[in-house]
């Protein structure tokens, strides 16, 4: 059974059709990279998968494990194991990262009909996850993303992902804005979270990230469709030639 199976997905934002027939299959444990020019619909794809309001699916289907993902609300999708690392993580003033994360963690436990986590146990869990990622949990004492540097925001997303242990992680330009050390840290973190079951969809503009996180497949998204798919070498080709040929004129 595939983790994710997208067929002929069409979606509108407002009146405009942004996704124009996407087909994509992801198997358990696979890492797929999606590259493509600005405005090609990469973030839109991630939002449609995560169930954001205002993104209207007009055709096609998305199966996640064996469920019809499009039937579920955003929170249900998250609780089923879809995680989105945001391109622009959102500030939640007055709410500490720890509180936020515990709310998230407990939501999932409740969804699964389980007991909520004990506060101390949860704290321990977070500490150990942070340690595995070589990160400090200090930022969890601050309000979520408020006043965080770009790099801190991205690291925070990865830490949340580590704690929430999703089945499918979508990383939307998690590498953008990171300096080289932070990039390695984040990539190591992501690699540490790779398992035989967990699948990832990594949206990026830079093949550099893929030097650290080796993808099983690379796709080029342009004009709302996957124009080409291939292995790691496709990323190198794009790096050399750019998106010429995918810009709608080719």
């Amino acid at each position, binding site marked *: 059974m595939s983790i994710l199976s997208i067929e002929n997905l069409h979606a509108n934002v407002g009146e405009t059709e942004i996704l124009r027939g996407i087909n994509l299959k992801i198997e358990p444990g696979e890492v797929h990279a999606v590259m493509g020019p600005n405005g090609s619909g990469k973030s839109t794809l991630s939002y449609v998968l995560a*169930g954001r309001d205002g993104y209207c699916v007009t055709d096609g289907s998305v199966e996640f494990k064996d469920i019809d993902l499009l039937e579920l609300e955003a929170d249900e999708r998250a609780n089923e194991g879809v995680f989105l690392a945001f391109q622009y993580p959102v500030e939640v003033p007055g709410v500490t990262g720890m509180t936020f994360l515990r709310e998230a963690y407990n939501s999932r436990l409740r969804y699964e009909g389980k007991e909520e986590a004990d506060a101390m146990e949860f704290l321990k869990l977070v500490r150990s996850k942070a340690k595995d990622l070589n990160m400090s949990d200090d930022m969890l004492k601050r309000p979520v993303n408020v006043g965080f540097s770009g790099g801190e925001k991205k690291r925070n997303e990865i830490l949340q992902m580590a704690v929430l242990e999703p089945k499918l992680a979508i990383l939307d330009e998690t590498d953008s804005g990171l300096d080289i050390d932070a990039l390695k840290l984040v990539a190591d973190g992501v690699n540490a979270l790779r398992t035989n079951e967990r699948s990832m969809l990594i949206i990026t503009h830079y093949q550099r990230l893929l030097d650290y996180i080796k993808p099983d497949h690379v796709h080029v998204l342009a004009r709302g469709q996957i124009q080409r798919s291939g292995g790691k070498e496709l990323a190198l080709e794009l790096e050399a030639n750019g998106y010429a040929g995918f810009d709608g004129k080719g």
Partner: protein
Amino acid sequence: MSIDANTADRVKELEVDKYKYGFVTDIEMETAPKGLNEDIIRFISAKKEEPDWLLEWRLKAYRHWLTMDEPDWAKVGYDKIDYQDLHYYAAPKNIDRPKSLDEVDPELLNTYEKLGIPLKEQELLSGVVAVDAVFDSVSVATTYKAKLTEMGVIFCSISEAVREYPELVKKYIGSVVPYSDNYFATLNSAVFTDGSFVYVPKGLRCPMELSTYFRINAENTGQFERTLIIADDGAYVSYLEGCTAPQRDENQLHAAVVELVTLDNAEIKYSTVQNWYPGDENGKGGIYNFVTKRGACRGENSKISWTQVETGSAVTWKYPSCILQGDNSIGEFYSVAITNNAQQADTGTKMIHLGKNTRSTVISKGISAGRADNTYRGLVKILPRAEGARNFTQCDSLLIGNKCGAHTVPYIESRNPSARVEHEATTSKISEDQMFYCMQRGLSSEAAVSLIVNGFCKEVMKELPMEFAVEAQKLIGISLEGSVG
């Protein structure tokens, strides 16, 4: 103490439901006939075995009230109250002055238990809170009396204080809120039935939180409590007030008066979690909460701090204030006011700077949802003698949905050129980005709203004592239920 991870955890454990305090206690009541006249006032005063001076004071207030008009300047609308159609005295039978908790009707103890306020002393939060419970017109029980008395703290019902400590009551009652102050306070002065009295002696930091729980139970009964708290030189006390009422179709009137007095170097911290029945989605029923709360910092370096979380009532009209008389005295007002459905709140504070170098801080967080209206009305007044006075006011409004309203009405009067007054105001909405971010992490839309709103209120919530913070966080979630579609 601040709200941290653990608090939020405890909050989640508590069950979240609609207005769970909406039950009615079936108990035999002694009720005065409906209507308001001098005889009723004499009846109340006689019931309470009051001295003549107090009866005279009540009558003076009543005669003055007859000459007054109900105020209409607040941004609230409600049906005219028929003051002759109310009972002004209702008391559970057989509880005339219980000597100990054993003498209190078990049905009443049950009621408080259901409210989460066990009155058996050993069950109270590990001895850190002493409670005075007011049921309709009378105080039914005060816990930890012996322990407090030993330290010299007087904590009892105001009726008892009138009997046992008449000089103290006579000296301070009406000294902060005069009988002629305003329509509702004047009415209260005429007919107040019970409330709490606290006196903390010189130099004592009261080690327990003192707490009063008000419960309106009887039908068609106005509740008029009067609370008087005095912190003598160098004393400190933290006082908590909680309120609930049953769910009823008709509106019930609540017009309380609270007076606080701090002498030199004294401090009073007064916290309220107001959760009177707000009425149903269509605005039927609910409490009219018309309250006058005022503190006088009489002494130098004294401090009065009001913290309120207002989630209940159909209509709230309330401006806890500080009169900063003593030099270097400090007034603070931290407020969260939430209105949902058809609720209306017009609330804020008055900071009156009289003494030199007096300082005041106002942090107000208004949240409106549904068709509700929420108004912050604040007055900062600096008098000529208040050399070096400072005020900082911050008013933030959060709107949920687009049918609700938020209004900020600041009045600033400065008559001393050395004074500094700052006012900041913001209005925001819960953003779609924030909602999606929370929901993408698994939170339901209601949990997301509750979390975001709690974050918005954080600066105020952290001022609440721990025991109340948990309750208040939970209330915020409950009162916003159904506010997102």
